[in-house]
């Protein structure tokens, strides 16, 4: 596979891993956070931790849009879908996320019309194909996905489609990073920056991390060689005492971002004054809502939503794990009350969530190491 296989070549991976070991040395302990859930998933999928030296610690950040979605919002979306004649459309990632009365898949088992879509345009297509029904698209994602949702609404308006709406849960990445850095128990040396969000917002929005917070940040691709090269670049900066924004993912990320995508977002969305992030609390100016021009497609305007806040059980330590203060297995519920089959907290629900990734890929390996030690 072009642009994929080249970045998985074993020879180059070993070479880059050697360079990391050489640069990292043994004296200093490095704490690097990968913000984006896609990077968390890649780290586990490619077994990256096995090839990094012990003194480089990867901390998982909050960039998993499913994980940070409060349960109350899922309940709200399902409440809308319970109306007669409504089709609930969402990405596969959302299907198993539990609301207080079950996940979308469980609702489907009980007779609700729930469909998996792979694109917001699929949801719009469903609306065209089912003129007697209303299609509600449950939109999630960071700035990577928001432009596609926006463009879909622009097209829906141009076509005069009446039976389509979006329940918008798009969030923005910068406030999440700010919340991490503002957290008092957080000690981080550097960031592995989001790759695909940056194709939209570019690299400029991260400059304050380097200039004000003095932390290096390298915008990284998702293949093993991408992430390893990003770590090389971060180590070089750290050893030189530098802090700047670098773009490792040059083949895909334009420094200035994607103007057309940003225009579509500006046309359709505006920032909510505040939004609740599961595990992180309320963050101001961190989420998008549909503006008046496209109000006809705003599910929150067309339908009545209960809007009830659902708090997580106190024992669930999602917030600390999200901020990287705790490792997944250090949460008291991990692997016991909270497993991928019966998730209690947000991070166990999505395949990108650190707890789910750790549970599926890692913690038995840890047990194996203890046994052989």
């Amino acid at each position, binding site marked *: *596979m*072009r*642009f*994929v296989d*080249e970045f998985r070549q074993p020879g*180059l991976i070993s*070479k*880059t891993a*050697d*360079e990391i070991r*050489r*640069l990292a040395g043994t004296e200093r302990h490095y704490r690097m956070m990968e913000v*984006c*859930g*896609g*990077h968390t998933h890649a780290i586990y999928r490619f077994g990256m931790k096995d090839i990094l030296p012990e003194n480089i610690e990867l901390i998982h950040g909050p*960039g*998993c*849009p499913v994980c940070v979605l409060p349960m109350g919002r899922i309940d709200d979306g399902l409440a809308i879908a319970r109306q007669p004649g409504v089709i609930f459309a969402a*990405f596969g990632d959302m299907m198993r996320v539990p609301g207080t009365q079950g996940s979308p898949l469980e609702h489907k088992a009980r007779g609700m019309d729930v469909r998996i879509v*792979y*694109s*917001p*345009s*699929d949801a719009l297509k469903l609306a065209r194909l089912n003129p007697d029904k209303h299609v509600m698209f449950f939109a*999630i*994602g*960071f700035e*990577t*996905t928001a*432009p*596609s949702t926006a*463009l879909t609404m622009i*097209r829906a308006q141009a076509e005069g489609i009446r039976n389509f709406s979006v329940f918008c849960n798009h969030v923005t990445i910068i406030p999440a990073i700010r919340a991490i850095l503002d957290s008092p128990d957080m000690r981080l040396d550097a960031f592995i920056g*989001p*790759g*695909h*969000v940056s*194709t*939209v917002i570019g690299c400029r929005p991260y400059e304050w991390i380097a200039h004000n917070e003095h932390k290096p940040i390298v915008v990284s691709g*998702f293949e093993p*060689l991408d992430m390893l*090269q990003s770590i*090389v670049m971060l*180590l*070089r900066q750290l*050893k*030189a005492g530098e802090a700047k924004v670098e773009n*490792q993912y*040059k*083949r*895909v*990320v*334009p420094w200035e971002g*994607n*103007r*057309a*995508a940003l225009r*579509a977002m500006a046309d359709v969305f505006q920032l909510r004054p505040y939004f609740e992030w599961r595990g992180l609390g309320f963050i101001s100016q961190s989420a998008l809502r549909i503006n008046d021009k496209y109000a006809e497609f705003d599910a929150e305007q067309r339908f009545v939503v209960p809007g009830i806040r659902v708090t997580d059980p106190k024992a669930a330590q999602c917030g600390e794990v999200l901020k990287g203060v705790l490792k997944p297995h250090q949460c008291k519920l991990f692997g016991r009350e909270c497993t991928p089959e019966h998730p209690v907290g947000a991070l166990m629900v999505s395949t990108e969530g650190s707890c789910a990734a750790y549970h599926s890929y890692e913690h038995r390996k840890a047990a194996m190491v203890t046994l052989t030690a």
Partner: protein
Amino acid sequence: MCLAIPGKIVEISSENQDSALVEVIGVRRRIDLGLLQDDKPAAGDWVLVHVGFAMSKISEQDAADQMNTLRMLGEIDGAMQEVQGYGLEDREIDASRLDYKEPIQ
């Protein structure tokens, strides 16, 4: 929120300039080019696809440059040892600051 895959544009629809057929080792998918209005791709170009939309063009040149940079890792060390062998140890050369595109002086 990041699953995006490189795909090659096989065909741009004649009826709709924003619709293209993209291929990923033999699997074809119809995608939307609407977010690349400012930099329209052509058949044969590679794009990054996310939720059915092309997000960005993939620069083959940048990919090739990256590969070269990675291949040269470790060769810098070899070159360093050779240079030091010429008795130039008094000049401090910090390998971590070298830009690989420049020849080592």
